[in-house]
């Protein structure tokens, strides 16, 4: 029985390997770059959400008094622990929207909050949500978060996931209360938060 596994039992075969790799190379060369449609587009969750936040700046109008002058930048900020890991900063870097450049800022927590134009509220700040939402309303920042109860607690835009795709919900009442205007195109793309009577 043992001789079934004799020393010659391993049969290495180099030629098929060489043939296969040559074939692979040949195919690669033969086909070359092509423009046929690829497969489903995919991205990292927070890379994608960062791009959404960047898009939001195109569809939002801030009250004039929220800018120092006509050249001051639109400040996009994160409060709390940053789930974007640099993606949001990269998304807004060297961009201009409506003649204004975009700037990125990070606030360690609710107490360190300063005026800005778009504020992503990290889940780590859940306890201070009420305070953050009130402060942001005062300086007319568009508030954005992932947390489930965000819009219910007075937040403006909440990300959700449907079929692995990013969707968002907008609470119009909160947006209007801050003196912001969101363009119809964005409202149409998102879900509208239903106010409870």
């Amino acid at each position, binding site marked *: 029985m043992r001789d079934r596994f004799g020393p010659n039992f391993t049969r290495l075969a180099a030629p098929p390997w060489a043939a*296969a790799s040559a074939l692979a190379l040949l195919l690669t060369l033969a*086909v070359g770059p*092509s423009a046929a449609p690829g497969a489903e587009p*995919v991205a990292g969750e927070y890379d994608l959400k960062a791009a959404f936040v960047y898009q939001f700046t195109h569809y939002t109008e801030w009250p004039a008094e929220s800018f120092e002058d006509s050249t001051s930048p639109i400040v996009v900020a994160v409060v709390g622990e940053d789930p974007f890991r640099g993606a949001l900063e*990269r*998304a807004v870097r060297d961009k201009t929207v409506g003649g204004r450049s975009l700037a990125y800022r990070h606030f360690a927590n609710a107490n360190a909050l300063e005026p800005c134009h778009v504020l992503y509220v990290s889940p780590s700040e859940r306890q201070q949500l009420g305070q953050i939402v009130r402060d942001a309303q005062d300086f007319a920042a568009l508030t954005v978060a*992932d947390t489930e109860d965000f819009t219910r607690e007075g937040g403006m835009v909440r990300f959700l*996931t449907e079929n692995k795709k990013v969707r968002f919900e907008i609470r119009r009442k909160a947006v209007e209360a801050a003196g912001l205007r969101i363009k119809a195109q*964005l409202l149409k793309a998102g879900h509208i938060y239903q106010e409870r009577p």
Partner: protein
Amino acid sequence: MRRQPLWVIIALAAHAATLAVPAGAAAGTQRAPLLPVSAAATTEPVEGADADAAPAGAAAAQHDDDDAFHSVDELTSMSLEELMEVSILNTRVTSVTRERTRVAEAPAAVHVITQDDIRRSGHTSIPELLRLAPGLSIARINANQWAISARGFNHVFHNRYADKLLVLQDGRPLYNPMSSGIYWESQDYLLQDIDRIEVVRGPGSTLWGANAVNGVINVVTKSARDTQGTLAHALAGTQESIGALRHGGRIDEETYYRVFAKYRDHYNFANPDGTDAHDGWDQFRGGFRIDRHVGDGDVFTLQGEGYEGQIGRTHDLDTLDLPFSVVSQDQFSINGADVIGRWTHSISPTSDFSLQMFYDRISRNDPVVGYEQDTFDVEFQHRFALTERQQIVWGVGARLMSDELENTQVIRVRDTSRQTYLLHAFVQDHVTIVPERLHLFVGSKFEVNPFTGLEVQPGVRGLWTPNETNTVWAAASRAVRTPNRLDDDADILFTRVGLPGSLVEVRGEHNNELKSEEVLALELGYRVEPVEHLSLDVATFYNRYDNLIGYVPTEPRLADPPLDLIFPRQARNVMAGETFGAEVAAHWRVSDRWRLSGSYSFIETRINNRGGVDASDATTIEDSAPRNQFQVHSYVNVTRDLELNAALYFVDEIGIHPNVGRGDLPEYARLDVNVAWRPREGLELTIGVQNLLDEAHPEFVPEAREHYSEVERMFYAQLVWKF
């Protein structure tokens, strides 16, 4: 112990060469423009069950699809409409906590084989696909049989298949209650319609019950909504050929369906001496699935399939005359069917319930263990938020089984027909101690079975996420493997020995007083994303087993002619033992076009017998799973429509039962390579080779009776056409 370093070196060099080819080719095509997303976003949508809001990020443990992976810079150049079509790359699983959890946040050793992994692997069957999961032992016995286990115990022993793993397909258990094993040759699906395969190593018993001792595997098929249109699949290879057709459509606004048919024909492998092993098989399978989505809250699913096939089997047949054992080549038929109905109702984002029923029928004309079995099962599950910090999942279920066994020369039972039942309930409390940071999962399964009565299987799991890139989890669980129909009732002919003037039979005898085999499992795991695009997943375990079943020789007795003497061996709970080990998996997105993933696993098994049992049984278990295994996968997008995929597997030596042969079955390395080309949308052509490194090698030697053959190299060409 024999080592073959040359083998491994050549394998590694070959793999390096694989990488060298596409890396150069890819560099030349870097300037190929990325397509507008609106044009690219035409493939199938993904599974529709996760309408839940995403919690804060943690380390992305896995990337499930990289066909058109977009960086932040690319994303910011897209319009809002285009962004809405981009899918998130992360995988969620339900097997661990019965809530949809991200892999990175699951408090268990979990791995997900995604549709993309399936497509790029070149594997053609469910058991072969499981090679992709770290830490599993996959050993192909012959063309139609596999020995598969998690964390050791991969022995096939007197018709006992690896019996400590629970495998489900869409919530329906695939393991066979007769022997607790799985007939892998009976499990198949249109592989393109599988959404994912969740593989959990370690006990899943707290939620899934008996048999989930060392692991749970859940094959999840796509919703009919996600398989619209027609798909044709044809594969021609040197070892097998497959043809399949699926059509998906819409009945009305809310209702989607698909139907499929598949035929596969596998040729004979060869015996170690080069002769034909007579283990070829074929199978026809057809099925359907209907999903009705009513509003946001209700999903009704009805699915079913049926199969029929012929299996070639070579085995030893005992005779009453010289030479007392002959090699018999048989062909037998198997068939089966199942229907599953499921209603899922969502009450709120934190609350839902589901009601599932299934009926399953299997029939095997196996010359060794022939039987028919009908199973009816109903299960209810409810999830709700008890308080703001406590999420409860609970469920109850019942299963009725009716079987009819055929007494064969090998297996003899007292009751050729039995009706048995299983009642079960589980509850789990998911406590959020610190939001986003610290979670505790406490739960237990309660099961009443006809053999040992009530079994309680509690478990506790903790998950700590100190920051966005680090996750630590720990778990302690008790799990059992309840005795099965054969343990309880069957006498098994082990062997016959002709001595001068007398004929002696060694016979394994049933024991209806067996207790459950049990394990206490301790686990500790860590996931980290040390730098962007690299993630590591480490799982360690220490398991203590008790009441393991072994055969104890009892008093020889005289037998009816023509036998003279019987040497009985009774199944008893006589062994105990421990296993410990570690599994490390890594995923690295080297660039937008090149992804690497790999894993290494180690296990040490120590079994001791507490008295009387043949020591070789303990050794067989100890040496049944490879001590060291590693695998590396390389996925390269050479151009937008050309992929080069390669996988290298190394499997350490395993033991051979002393009854069968001496020594060890040597380690082997396996290299699979394929090239996939999409000349136009919806059409994919693949050519590939499995086992490039050698002509054939054995992977497993079963203990007695069943024959094994060598797994051969296969060249294949495949076409998948969606229209």
